[in-house]
């Protein structure tokens, strides 16, 4: 009943190996790579593909072991226990992921709703910063409160300290976050990290995704206002920033972002980006087709 190039019993082994490789060495390599900042959108898709493939492999490995038990010939107690354990593992991974996504999403939405109420009550509007809410504060800051009903918020000190074109660049950057719903992309990686904080490189994936969406927003802003106002705004607002609970955030630092603005725009790397998209597709498709198909055929033949 073999319907693929690989023996069916090899499926769990291959999927487990893939899951481990995709959760450990692959993200470690991608996190160290220098090229993602040249093609941030493609790199973000590759991170998503990598993460999705890792999760699917882990689930597939557990599920395939568990179902082989049902169809297998050698039914002794040891095998049954092994397969039961694999089944429980699969369910646990899935449940943890769904639960983490649910609790994180719920708490984020609640915090954003509360913050939006506060902003709406305490901010004012100023024609110098069209479309934004202004908070009176000595500190210079600007942020986007994402969501279906998003807000761009900037402090009065930031409005004062920025030149007109710099202010436009900041607002375009934040608008890009709100428009493209970058928060949802980051939320996916955050959910994975909170489900499996100790496993693999979930933290590296989250940090990388946070950095890449900053780059995407920078690119959107530079298309509209040019690179220079954005670079100047970064210097002005970074200078004044107090390092609070200092976390070594990777790739997002203002220094990297300014250096990046001096490099050629991503549009000059179209061919490279296309190659990364193809690799991302392959990462999800190839394991699914070559490994899972024979196993699925085997299972359906047994039914």
């Amino acid at each position, binding site marked *: 009943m073999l319907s693929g190039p690989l023996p069916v019993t090899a499926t769990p082994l291959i999927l487990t190996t893939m899951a481990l490789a995709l959760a450990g060495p692959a993200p470690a390599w991608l996190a160290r790579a220098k090229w993602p900042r040249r093609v941030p959108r493609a790199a973000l898709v590759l991170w998503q593909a990598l993460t999705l493939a890792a999760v699917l492999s882990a689930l597939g490995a557990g599920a395939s072991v568990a179902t082989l038990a049902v169809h297998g010939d050698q039914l002794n107690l040891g095998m049954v226990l092994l397969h039961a354990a694999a089944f429980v593992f699969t369910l646990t991974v899935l449940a943890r992921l769904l639960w983490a996504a649910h609790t994180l999403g719920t708490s984020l939405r609640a915090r954003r709703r509360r913050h939006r109420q506060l902003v709406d009550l305490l901010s004012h509007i100023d024609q110098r910063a069209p479309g934004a809410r202004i908070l009176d504060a000595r500190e210079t800051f600007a942020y986007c409160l994402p969501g279906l009903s998003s807000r761009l918020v900037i402090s009065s000190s930031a409005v004062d300290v920025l030149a007109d074109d710099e202010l436009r660049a900041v607002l375009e950057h934040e608008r890009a976050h709100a428009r493209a719903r970058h928060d949802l992309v980051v939320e996916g990686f955050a959910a994975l990290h909170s489900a499996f904080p100790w496993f693999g490189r979930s933290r590296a994936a989250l940090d990388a995704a946070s950095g890449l969406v900053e780059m995407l927003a920078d690119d959107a802003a530079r298309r509209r206002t040019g690179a220079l106002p954005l*670079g100047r705004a970064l210097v002005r607002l970074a200078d004044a920033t107090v390092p609070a*609970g200092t976390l070594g955030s990777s790739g997002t630092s203002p220094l990297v972002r*300014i250096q990046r603005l001096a490099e050629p725009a991503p549009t000059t790397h179209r061919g490279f980006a296309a190659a990364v998209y193809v690799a991302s597709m392959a990462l999800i498709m190839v394991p699914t087709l070559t490994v899972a198909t024979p196993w699925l055929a085997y299972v359906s033949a047994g039914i």
Partner: protein
Amino acid sequence: MGVAQGRRAHLGELERAVMDYLWSLAPTNTNHPTAPTNSGAPPGEPAPTPPQRAATVREVHDALAQARDIAYTTVMTVLDRLAKKGAVEQIRDGRAYLYRPAVTLDALTAELMHDALGTVDAESRASALVRFVDTASADDAAALRAALAKLERREY
């Protein structure tokens, strides 16, 4: 859609005006013997009720009507929304309701700034806000200016 959004924005602006008026009413909470100062209280917890004069809908309407054309029922709607959000307290006074802020302006501002300055989500990394410059960045100012100088040379 556009009309609905415009109406929401309008209500938001009115809510702000109503709160500004209510907060402006005799803030006698300085030197109040039982009210602790809010500076030490962790944000998010309900602040102690300010000993503040409550206003009738009529008073609020009169105050707002000075600057705009507004119906009495609209003021009632806005106060009702604010009460549902927990921003104002409704106090029964005979047949009518009196309204006063549920939280002081200082406490709300402190809570907002606590979020805005990023002291909350440094731990979880799943930030509620997307900042222009991450507060975790601690780049050397000289390095930043050098990078900017390079960008300026390239642009000109």
